[in-house]
């Protein structure tokens, strides 16, 4: 009846039980609060079924934040275990749980935290920055989001029902094959990523078409904000890389569920094929994450230096070069596979070459600051922190691009320290900078600067304290994923320092949460009535903050790069249109939730091999797709009178300032 799902799937060790209980209690309290304040239907009508990218963006960020906290809980477990588990002590969790914890940590941080924040920011910023009201396919956008949410749900479900993969965040076979991982953990991993991955792929198509087709009149490619260029590069990578992930995960799933032999250790399977395929997706994925972060930093450094971005054209070329080169370096993740000196040299050299366009960008940012009127706000602090850490991590990366050196540090903590430096110091700092920078755009008030600064400094010191020991440990020979080591190695001190660093990082995150809460409470003191708190340069700041549901009452015409800045400084009075027109926005629909819900159900049924549920859920998916796609998209009309009223109110507010 329920396939492999039996009562034993609900039995766990004490630490997991506490985590499950905590999650359930938080969930129940949340639902009770919603019912108590009669907000359930508000949540459904205004948020969950919304096709407004501004709301979808916020929902992405909400899920990503939740997953960040889950990922951090895993960090604390890993760091505690490694700080204690030396010599006679075996730490707080057993080896199998430890393996699940680090696998879950990597999976969640990349797929649900970094990707979640990324798509959240894209949804919020891309349309207004190109002078558009919406993305190209609003309904598809909702489906993408709910697929992402479905994937996140499966990962979280694995905590309570069954187990998670213990095969690392990329589940290399043959370990991830059925003969070595007979449980449902790897299946949870496969299907949560498969479902979320298809969502990302659809988002990639959506944003590519949005940028190509929906730019405001006059915004020629070389007048696009650099953030839009970075998203264009990143989304091109999504479109080329994610199908490889879909194919690879499918093959692993076929191995496990239908007994195929793609990557098995017997019957002619080839595990190395998997490693090649997963990194042919995985390396571009790194750039999918970092390119938008580059874009965010470019906007921020230009705004807070009060200057045009230095070397805009070289920046565009550098982005293009990185986009292309990112597909030519995947083999550097497994030099030790033994592809031979020629192949390894090629990939080593390509890897070194990618440092050149990245270096171009670093210098462009520094020259943008040079002789600028620099304002050291929190976003700018994150930027400066990024320049230091990213350069540090980049140098470590170039070091490892030399195959001979890579043979020494492969799979060591040196590598772990390197990619954390890039992803935390690059991607996450970029996300934090962008979050602080654009927060007033969507709320109407700025974040508390004082707590923001504290959060930054605690974060930065915590980060250095957590990862510099790992570089050293790596060079001392400590490999990754150790749940126990010999006391005579003398590693424990450094592991304890790293643990203190991780704790500081957690305090930093707590400060960030405090910052948001305090800012909401004190929002009256930080209102941005004119909608432009930072003296911005790009179109998104030309509307009021928060923007109305239709964003632009009138689609702007672009004449210049940094168009908003130029128009502000030509001191042309803001022209009031003689009359407003009605605006059509897509109508809310629950079809996205239904479709993604069935997809998630299919995933769950396959994971537990509940045979009857698979065709049922599949049929539901097909029928709901057919019903929705047979409808011609419905629109809601905001009348001209309504638009005029909202615009006049906003104008009056702005004139008061």
């Amino acid at each position, binding site marked *: 009846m329920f396939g492999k799902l039996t009562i034993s799937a609900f039995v766990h060790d004490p630490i997991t039980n506490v985590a499950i209980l905590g999650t359930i209690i938080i969930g129940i309290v949340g639902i009770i609060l919603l019912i108590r304040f009669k907000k359930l239907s508000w949540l459904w009508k205004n948020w969950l079924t919304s096709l407004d990218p501004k709301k979808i963006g916020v929902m992405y960020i909400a899920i990503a934040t939740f997953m960040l906290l889950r990922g951090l809980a895993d960090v604390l477990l890993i760091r505690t275990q490694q700080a204690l588990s030396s010599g006679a002590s075996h730490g707080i969790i057993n080896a199998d749980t430890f393996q699940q914890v680090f696998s879950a940590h990597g999976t969640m941080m990349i797929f649900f935290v970094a990707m979640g924040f990324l798509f959240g920011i894209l949804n919020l910023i891309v349309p207004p920055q190109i002078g558009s009201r919406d993305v190209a396919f609003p309904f598809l956008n909702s489906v993408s989001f709910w697929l992402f949410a479905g994937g996140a749900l499966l990962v979280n479900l694995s905590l309570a029902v069954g187990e998670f993969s213990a095969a690392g965040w990329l589940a290399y076979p043959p370990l991830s094959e059925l003969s070595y991982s007979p449980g449902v953990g790897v299946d949870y991993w496969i299907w949560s990523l498969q479902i979320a991955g298809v969502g990302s792929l659809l988002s990639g198509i959506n944003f590519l078409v949005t940028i190509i087709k929906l730019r405001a009149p006059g915004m020629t490619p070389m007048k696009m904000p650099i953030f839009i260029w970075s998203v264009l590069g990143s989304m091109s990578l999504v*479109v080329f890389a994610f199908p490889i992930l879909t194919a690879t995960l499918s093959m692993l799933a076929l191995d496990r569920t239908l007994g*195929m*032999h*793609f990557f098995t250790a017997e019957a*002619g399977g*080839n595990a190395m094929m998997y490693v090649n395929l997963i990194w042919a997706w995985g390396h571009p994925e790194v750039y999918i994450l970092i390119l938008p972060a580059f874009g965010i930093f470019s906007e921020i450094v230009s705004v807070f230096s009060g200057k045009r971005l230095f070397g805009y054209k070289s920046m565009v070329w550098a982005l293009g070069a990185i986009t292309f080169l990112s597909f030519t370096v995947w083999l550097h993740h497994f030099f030790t596979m033994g592809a031979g000196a020629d192949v390894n040299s090629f990939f080593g050299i390509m890897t070194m070459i990618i440092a050149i366009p990245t270096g171009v960008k670093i210098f462009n940012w520094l020259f943008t600051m040079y002789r600028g009127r620099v304002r050291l706000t929190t976003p700018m602090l994150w930027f400066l922190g990024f320049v230091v850490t990213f350069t540090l991590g980049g140098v470590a990366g170039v070091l490892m691009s030399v195959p001979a050196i890579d043979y020494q540090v492969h799979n060591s903590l040196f590598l772990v320290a390197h990619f954390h430096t890039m992803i935390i110091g690059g991607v996450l700092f970029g996300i934090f900078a962008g979050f602080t920078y654009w927060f007033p755009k969507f709320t109407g008030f700025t974040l508390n600067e004082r707590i923001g600064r504290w959060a930054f400094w605690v974060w930065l010191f915590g980060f250095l304290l957590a990862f510099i020991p790992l570089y050293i440990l790596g060079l001392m020979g400590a490999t990754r994923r150790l749940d126990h080591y010999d006391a005579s190695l003398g590693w424990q001190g450094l592991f304890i320092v790293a643990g203190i660093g991780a704790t500081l990082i957690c305090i930093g995150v707590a400060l960030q949460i405090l910052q948001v809460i305090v800012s909401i409470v004190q929002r009256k003191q930080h209102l941005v009535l004119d909608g432009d708190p930072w003296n911005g340069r790009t179109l998104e700041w030309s509307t009021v903050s928060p923007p109305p549901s239709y964003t632009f009452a009138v689609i*702007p015409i672009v004449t210049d790069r940094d168009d908003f800045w130029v128009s502000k400084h030509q001191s042309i009075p803001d*022209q009031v249109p003689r009359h407003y027109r009605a605006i059509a926005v897509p109508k809310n629909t629950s079809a996205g939730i239904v479709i993604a819900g069935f997809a998630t159900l299919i995933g769950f049924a396959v994971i537990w091999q509940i045979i009857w549920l698979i065709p049922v859920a599949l049929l539901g998916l097909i029928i709901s797709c057919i019903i929705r796609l*047979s409808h011609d998209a419905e629109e809601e009309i905001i009348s001209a009178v309504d638009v005029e009223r909202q615009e006049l109110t906003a104008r009056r507010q702005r004139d008061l300032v």
Partner: protein
Amino acid sequence: MSERVNAGLHGESAMQKQAKVLLGFWIYLMTDLVLFASLFATYAVLRSNTFGGPGGGQLFNLPLVLVETILLLTSSFTAGLLTIVLSRGNRRLVMVFLALTFVLGVGFLVIELTEFSHLIQDGNSWQRSGFLSAFFTLVGMHGLHIAVGLLWMLVVGYQVLYRGLTTAVTRRLRLISLFWHFLDIVWIFIFSIVYMIGVL
């Protein structure tokens, strides 16, 4: 920004929508091509991993595959004719060519499934070797796409009958035709790389 216009406020024109959907669909097709490319690459790597079992030379029935190929190529031709009569707005002929394409597609799929079932009955299922896993997955993935295309034709055929050639229905028919040509191209690669080289 110094000037603002009131153009294009009332939603968007049908032509803009058409251009958007067409570009989006083309990009989708390219992503699908990458998916197939990954499967082709895997097939190329695992091709000789027969694990003592039979290889392509012993298994493939080339004349049957040729019939399959002719059916699919003909269906692609009728799908092309479909778009021609579509631009003339001839609903009856649209239905005729849609039905023809559908029937030819079903014929293709039936032959493919027959081939699969024969292979499985002879003990050469996907569990036999890495080569057969790759073969079944690559060819089966194409077959799955064909099945989805056929289902899509049924739905849109129903819409042509009961709603007529509205803008939305016309757009969908054009997309189906694109999808079908795309699957045809992928099949040509399967035919040459899997079957032709396989029997060499």
